[in-house]
């Protein structure tokens, strides 16, 4: 097969693999994807690995070890474009909760042989270590958005990925606001769109899986929750999930937490 397909590598750092699975989950589109892009290095899908350099690297996961901090630089060096996928890679993930805690203490308490464990005190996003060409949000990422980003990459156009609030998706979908009608502490007004506003459509407040939207006003939202009776511990918990390390969410939780 004469091959002018662009090459793709998929890399994993500290993460649950869910975002990589979104790629495999593209089932119907996967054959077209494989026709369009040469999947050169994706060990979750195939053990046949083609050596770099690569036209595009998709990076999942956060940096939590010195080894990974080195490895991401090597990956950047052999990638023409690098796109991070998911909350771990773009904000540090749920494991960024360590950024608010004493990792040394975890090591002593959790592990029988703490000396076997070599880890950083923080979980940080990829963009804190190397230049990133595009960050795709979500925990996990949305499969439609992943296909859009890959299509845009292949055809050298800007991806259609908006950075406005989840509320815009609720409203287009026709879901009645769970914060206004049910006094739920919803993260939607400060959260980046992209999921299609799934949770409110099932009567549950947004968890903030896609991280901060383009102009988040967390303090105003928290003031609104407090009028509905949400206490400080719940405020901190809401902002400390998968995107706890994202600046706007981190600032909010630090202001309202210990």
């Amino acid at each position, binding site marked *: 097969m004469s091959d002018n397909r662009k090459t793709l590598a998929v890399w994993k750092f500290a993460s649950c693999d869910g975002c990589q699975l979104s790629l495999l989950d593209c089932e119907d589109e996967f054959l077209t994807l494989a026709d369009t892009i040469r999947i050169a290095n994706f060990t979750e899908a195939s053990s046949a690995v083609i050596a770099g350099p690569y036209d595009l690297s998709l990076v999942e996961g956060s940096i939590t070890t010195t080894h990974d901090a080195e490895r991401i630089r090597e990956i950047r060096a052999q990638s023409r474009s690098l796109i991070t996928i998911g909350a771990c890679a773009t904000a540090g993930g749920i494991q960024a909760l360590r950024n608010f805690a004493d990792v040394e203490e975890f090591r002593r308490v959790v592990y029988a042989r703490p000396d076997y464990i070599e880890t950083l005190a923080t979980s940080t996003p990829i963009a804190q270590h190397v230049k990133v060409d595009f960050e795709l949000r979500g925990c996990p990422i949305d499969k439609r958005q992943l296909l859009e980003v890959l*299509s845009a990459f*292949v055809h050298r156009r800007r991806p259609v990925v908006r950075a*406005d609030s989840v*509320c815009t998706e609720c409203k287009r979908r026709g879901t009645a606001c769970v914060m*206004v009608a*049910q006094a739920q502490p919803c993260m939607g007004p400060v959260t980046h769109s992209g999921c299609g506003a799934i949770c409110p459509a099932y*009567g549950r407040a947004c968890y903030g899986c896609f991280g901060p939207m383009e*102009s988040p006003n967390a303090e*105003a939202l928290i003031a*609104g929750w407090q009028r509905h009776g949400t206490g400080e511990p719940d405020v901190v918990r809401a902002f400390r999930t998968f995107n706890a390390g994202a600046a706007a969410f981190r600032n909010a939780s630090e202001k309202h937490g210990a």
Partner: protein
Amino acid sequence: MADASPPTSPDAATEIAAAFVLPAARLADLVTALRMEGYAVHGPMVRDAAIVLGPLADAVALPHGWTTRQSPGGYRLERRTDAAVFGFTHGADSWKKLLHPPRVRLWSAERQGADFVVHEDAPAPAKLALFGVRGCDLRAIAAQDKVLLHGPYPDAEYAARRAEAFIVAADCAEPSGTCFCVSMGTGPSARAGFDLALAELDPHGDAHRFLVRIGSPRGGAVAAQLDLAPAAGADIAAAAALADIAAANMGRAMDKDAARALLPAQRESAHWQDVAQRCLTCANCTMVCPTCFCTTVEDTSDLSGDIAERWRQWDSCFTFEFSHVVGATVRESASARYRHWITHKLSAWYEQFGESGCVGCGRCITWCPVGIDITAEVAALQDLSQRDPR
């Protein structure tokens, strides 16, 4: 291609040729008559702890015995002590979602060899009946008609949905805490722009009935099928009395003439910073507003590069993308975005369309997650300008 001018022009005064009485138990007959005429009937129903608009299979789905309590950033669905069908004002959405849908594909293109063909998406033929449209919403539809039908570039999708839309209006008897239609001159009763208008009388007991006013020949024809008894003068007077009580019980008020002059003059007011502290820039106010009409266009291509599509969807002046021009967003701050929205709505709209862009429905107040109140912001600016006149 549908005729661009709607059969019922909300701008024209509607002659009330006659009024009839429809017993509440026969409301189902009206829904059925519309369905038999081929209309897809949409109306209010309870869903998601709110009253929302949806397809009505029958009159049973209507919110019998429900009401809502509304305040800035607050909405509670509550049981009534009577069986009123229209015992609430408006819900979480507006008729905009039917006439000016949130997301529409405009066209697609397909590669064919070295060339490509474009498939235009002709607007789907729609024969909608809107069941239970309030006075404020009639005026909101009229406002969107001005923008989307009567301007230099009529919108084909809107025209197709609007052309045959049959409107059953419903007078408001109990305004909500965020209503101010009287200030804006749009309610609480349906005045024009409907085919039939209902006023609900005596929802407490066996005499529960609707006064039916005819607003168009088409409305008259549907009413004729129901073989209704003519209304007694007392019923007409009772409906008028309810409207008077409703008008006296508005949750809010706004001086619309003052707002028109005030907003451009207060462009540099420090108050915008105060609003920015509270504003989430989440865009909810614009999405629920029944007159906000802005959309954006998204072009996409598929992986193979053989298919391209153009989609249009609701946009909002509260997003960065909205004012993004080569390389930068023009209105970056929340203060600039809120100021732009309220100034356009209450002032610049007159220059563009000859009226206020606000119909006083109060949705932006109720559905703002943090309860920013357009009437309170105008009042605050008025206060400041009187203290520090420029």
